[in-house]
């Protein structure tokens, strides 16, 4: 008798505890991973924008995807470090002695991803390759100027994968 009375309560509790997921907009498949080179770092100096600034030096970073990553394959992007000329607002690259490091960090889950390889392509111009996001969501692309293990300067690019 008691168990029959308890059954509706238990069933109600279970149904009330049912998950109510919030879903992100569905990611559209990318027919071509290679991005058209008509904007971003491949544009003229006057067209480049200061996408983010380093916290200590105030230097600008402009960046663009070269090959967008997918759920199974890594991608690559090109970024430049420089300053905006106060006269003509052109982006002027600044040479850095330190080879920047790129760290992928997922703040909502508290973990990073696989290591990113950075190569120098010219004065203040770099390519980050093997960029792989282990899961979808909001990520931080952290570009760091390090001396040994010490981060001297850093900027953060927000990216949703």
């Amino acid at each position, binding site marked *: 008798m008691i168990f029959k009375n308890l059954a509706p309560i238990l069933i109600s509790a279970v149904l009330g505890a*049912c998950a109510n*997921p919030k879903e992100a907009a569905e990611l559209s498949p990318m027919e071509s991973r290679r991005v058209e080179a008509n904007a971003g770092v491949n544009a003229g100096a006057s067209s480049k924008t200061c996408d983010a600034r380093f916290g200590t030096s105030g230097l600008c970073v402009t960046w663009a995807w070269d090959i967008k990553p*997918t759920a199974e394959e890594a991608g690559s992007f090109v970024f430049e470090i420089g300053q905006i000329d106060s006269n003509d607002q052109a982006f002027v690259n600044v040479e850095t002695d330190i080879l920047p490091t790129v760290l992928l960090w997922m703040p*909502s889950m508290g*973990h*990073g*991803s696989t*290591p990113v390889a950075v190569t120098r392509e010219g004065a203040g111009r770099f390519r980050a390759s093997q960029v792989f996001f282990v899961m*979808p*969501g909001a990520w931080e692309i952290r570009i760091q100027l390090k001396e040994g293990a010490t981060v001297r300067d850093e900027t953060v690019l927000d990216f949703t994968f």
Partner: protein
Amino acid sequence: MRQSWILLSSLILFCALWFSNGVSAAACCGGGAAFPSLIIGDEKAQLTASYALTDVAVASVDSNGVWRESSSRPQIQSFNLEGAHILADRWQVGFSAPVQHKSFAQQTYSGWGDVSGRIGYEYLPDWDYHPWRPKGVGFLQIRLPTGKSRAESDRGGLDSMGSGFWSLGLGSVLTKARGAFDFLATAEIHRSLAKRFSNSQMAGELRPGWGGTWGVGAGYSLQHVRFGALLTWVYEDPVEVRVFERFKGVAERQATASLSVSFLAGREWAGTLSYSDQTLIGSPVNTSLGRSLSVLLQRRWGR
């Protein structure tokens, strides 16, 4: 009556193993607190082997509770060996040794999960019949950092097989059988210890906190077969990551609904087939969610 007790023991063992098996680990590589295998019946010792296959159906649930799926879904295989042995009439010791194998995006990772040891005590014995008083077993558990924490992983957590922290836990299981029905309630709380870490990308300190697991279950027995259901909830405090910057972290929550069928072959052997799903109940955050199928085989020795 004897059959009911045998099937009830199987239920408890299954529930206990399920906490420490692949379901919890499906939560992105980290997973919730291990739960011990306990001797509930009249056995002197028991040894259990289990295998679980988990499909990570939801790649991530962020701190705002937004679910995101991925076109490429990781799969996790979990193998677990657990044992328990009576020390004295009401005291017992046990262990759990899980191994995991993960595959994702043409990469595979294998390693130990969180190995744990425990001491149990039957604080509420069932020596005489009582219509409502349950049987209660309490336990003290220590968990070893044999499974890497996802915060210290430089593979985005793919090579993380457990919590990765030393932890001490305290818990209890209450059981009661009424005719063909049986009921179960569990609770466990633990404190994880801070650690320093270093990988190819960063070095620093991880500072976890408190965590807990609780659950309720019920079952119905028909001769040698038992049908069971179980709901469990897992909570973990945020893990603060102190590297070049201090990341406060986000608490982790997940809940699992499970259905099982158990079969007893005499008094020495038992088997269980179960299905569990983390996408059905609760309000998960900071986790991945999986669906698992598992099989379990147990050998018992009488006193």
